[in-house]
């Protein structure tokens, strides 16, 4: 399949906004993601008529209404299935799935698993706020253990799922992470996701100001972010810290990471790992890093393309003779072996 980049250089970020009034709570992280998306698409020169936003149910699922592209607000958890059908019907469309931790990992967990393993050419953006917002604050499958909520007044007892570990386990070939308010990285991650052919999975840590405010402050607060975030970049050493003085390496003899302190010199010791975004084992180690003991890995953690599902489906159809010059009905019905004539 040839990929043609369709651009529309005239469009500005505001041109990707619809005329609908945005109805998220004031201060919601969703505003930042919407803004980043407008910017990302404008910079890409994405054509509005070829772009489709598909969502399920939840706060994040309102997203398509605020875009001036095509949009389909569907039902809870099923956006990946509907998006798969859209790509099967028209592989030329540029399709985004906007979902949340409840929509994508709870009610829609099964569809998320399969859309990732199939590698359908979609960009899937999961807004993770670790809470159910639209239904007024119940704990979600990504809520930390002990989360007190209307449905868990004594604190939740179940263990949370890690969105990116789930995606990698499902066979996703593009896994990235970003923070709602860190616009530059978010825009760039969305653009990388867009460039990737196949299913791209982006987890965005998104603050819910009403029901789970400050859930990510531990690593997103501006004063400490440099020490609590690890920005990964392909080919670059895995170092972090305000003074770039800490690095990750494997513990000798073990498949286990450790943080080492770097010397003042500019020379990076041999043992410090260099990010290889095609290395799945490394990706699995990186997504498992959790604060406060570890920095949170952000950026494109894994990217290892393979042919996309719908491209393979269409290749089979073409091999079977579909497309221009497809045979007519007579050929189908007048199968010579099985017919007889009555005169």
């Amino acid at each position, binding site marked *: 399949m040839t990929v043609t980049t369709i651009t529309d250089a005239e469009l500005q970020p505001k041109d990707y906004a619809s005329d609908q009034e945005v109805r998220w709570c004031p201060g919601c992280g969703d505003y930042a993601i919407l803004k980043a998306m407008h910017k990302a698409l404008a910079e890409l020169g994405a054509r509005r008529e*070829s772009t489709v936003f598909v969502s399920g149910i939840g706060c994040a699922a309102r997203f398509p209404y605020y*875009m001036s592209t*095509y949009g389909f607000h569907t039902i809870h958890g*099923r956006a990946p299935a509907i998006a798969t059908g859209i790509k099967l019907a028209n592989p030329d469309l540029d399709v985004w799935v906007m979902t949340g931790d409840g929509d994508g990992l709870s009610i829609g967990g099964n569809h998320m698993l399969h859309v990732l393993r199939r590698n359908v050419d979609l960009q899937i953006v999961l807004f993770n706020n670790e809470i159910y917002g639209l239904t007024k604050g119940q704990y979600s499958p990504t809520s930390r253990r002990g989360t007190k909520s209307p449905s868990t007044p004594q604190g939740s007892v179940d263990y949370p799922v890690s969105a990116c570990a789930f995606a990698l386990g499902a066979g996703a070939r593009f896994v990235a992470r970003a923070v709602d308010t860190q616009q530059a990285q978010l825009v760039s991650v969305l653009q990388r996701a867009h460039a990737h052919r196949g299913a791209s999975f982006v987890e965005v840590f998104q603050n819910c100001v009403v029901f789970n405010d400050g859930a990510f402050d531990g690593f997103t607060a501006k004063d400490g972010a440099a020490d609590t975030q690890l920005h990964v970049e392909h080919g670059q050493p895995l170092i972090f810290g305000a003074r770039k003085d800490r690095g990750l390496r494997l513990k000798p003899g073990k498949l286990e990471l450790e943080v080492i302190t770097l010397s003042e010199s500019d020379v990076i010791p041999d043992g410090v790992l260099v990010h290889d975004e095609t290395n799945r084992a490394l990706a699995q180690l990186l997504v498992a890093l959790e604060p406060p003991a570890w920095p949170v890995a952000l950026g494109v953690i894994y990217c290892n393309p393979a042919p996309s599902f719908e491209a393979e489906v269409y290749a089979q159809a073409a091999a079977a003779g579909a497309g221009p010059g497809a045979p007519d*009905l007579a050929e189908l019905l007048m199968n010579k072996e099985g017919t007889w004539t009555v005169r």
Partner: protein
Amino acid sequence: MSFRTVSRRSQGFSLGKGRAFPYGLVHYHRATGTLVSCTMTTSATSPARESRDSVVIRFAGDSGDGMQVTGGRFTVETALAGNDLTTFPDYPAEIRAPAGTTYGVSAFQIHFGAVDVMTPGDQVDVLVAMNPAALKVDLKDLRIGGTVVVDTGAFTERNLAKAGFASHPLEDGSLAPYQVLKLDITKRTLDAVKDFGLHTREAHRCRNMWALGLMLWMYGRDRDVTVEWLKKKFAGKPEVAQANVAALNAGHAFGETAEMSEYGVGYTVRRARVTPGVYRTVSGTEAIAWGLVAGMRAAGLEKMVFAGYPITPASLLLHTLANLKRYGVITFQAEDEIAAIGACVGAAYAGALGVTSTSGPGMALKTEMLGLAIATELPLVVVNSQRAGPSTGMPTKAEQSDLFQAVHGRNADAPLAVLAAATATDCFDVAMEAVRIATTYMTPVVLLSDAFLAHAAEPWRIPDLDRLPRFPVRFRTDPAGFHPFLRDSETLSRPWARPGTPGLEHRIGGLEKDYDTGHISYDPENHARMTRTRAAKIAGIANGIPLQTVALGADHGAIAVVGWGSTYGAIHQAVRRARQDGIDASHIHLRYLSPFPRNLGELLRRFERIVVPELNNGQLVQLLRAAYLVPAEELSKVQGKPFKVSEIVEALR
């Protein structure tokens, strides 16, 4: 009068006519012990065939015995011989039930004849029982005086015990009411294939071809096409192909040399008098698949996205369409029933024909997505091959119990169109019609089939393709004045605006929309208006479908027998028989179940009685009563089996 049949493997046993009878099949009168012929019409010295209008044969054996293949091949040869026919496979839900058990019995029934054959037949004329379990299960359907062919080689003590026989059925007189052909098919098959060097197991698997050969001989059928088919099927294993052909020929030769016609078992069934044309046999599943492709073409659509999740008995449609990619069919085996219909909703949104297929329990899972398709007014075809329920029920057995579910089974006021196919060949027309309604009215359409129709096959006169209906879709392209819920004044359908079309970018979803702008609306009056508009759109389909006709009989009178779906043949024959008996009955068969044809109420009121035979606990009967306040009477059967003609006739007396 009853007969007893005794089999003797008798070298040189004399029949008293001065010649040796090599295989030893003789019929003795039970009381007198003298040789008789049961149904023989010609002299014993000149073998000839008895003529029959129609015959019902059932091949029954273990699920590993290849009974479906045997029946399928007999069907092809019979169709090629020019008979009208209907077939019905009856196989267990277990893929490989323990061999020799009654629940592992697989059967295939074919009814063929010179007359209009409409059902698989109430009673079996010839039962081929490949093991004791098959005899145990299927004997009850054999008519008194009918023929049973048994493989004595399979009637071992062990198999008799597995089938639950307390005494030996071939020796205890329990088969006295029937003609019994006791043949050691196992041994004869092994003898016939011994030169091909097969393992015992492989050789044993040729038994079905021996039995087929005998039955083809019995009804004067050719076997050339089957020989070719075997060669092709086992192209990679020539010795297996040769062995199967040898077994087939041996069975045939046995009939020929044993001159079994002397004992009343060779028949001729005249060719049916049928309309000239090109024919082929078609199963309900194939007809739906082809009808969907024809519908897609008639709508001018390039693509059909067919998504399904494997479920008995609907999977066959997925398999059939998976082989039709070159005609523009994209098939997708989804992760579950919800994803399957979800992909179809997505495909429809993107401008393709979306079709999904399932059976009852799967239909239940799809209901939320149907609501979304109704709310967003997207075209969709959902085929439900109904099976006995509730819950898992009896997956391989037919029932018509999903009618309520199809018509009403969704949250909120969520009307859609419901159609039902009556026969295997009708499936083609109904599938096309489902596509027409879906695309014309921008609505989901449920096409009700069932486990019986999915597998039943009959000859089909291939229609004149130039005369098939055309109903081209007109995608919206003009941005001027566009919004996604503008309505056509006649059909009330909204425009189909595909992503990829410049200037028509819009957002739709499951939230209520404003009638005038298409934007989200929580306005109470608007919701009432939209609810009524959605209902009016579906009700208005009645203006675009034919008036209800009467399939048989007058359009007024004593009894209207009203049916829908696969009970067509049984009801039709029953009404025909009742009319011959002087009962003033008419057959009305509904293709359109939602909405009903607009003259239906008026038509029904012209009858004194309305009897509604259904393979459920009374569903259409309630819909008719609710819609028209008519005193419709229920005639229900819920045994997982089709109606027998006689059951309906009885109810009309």
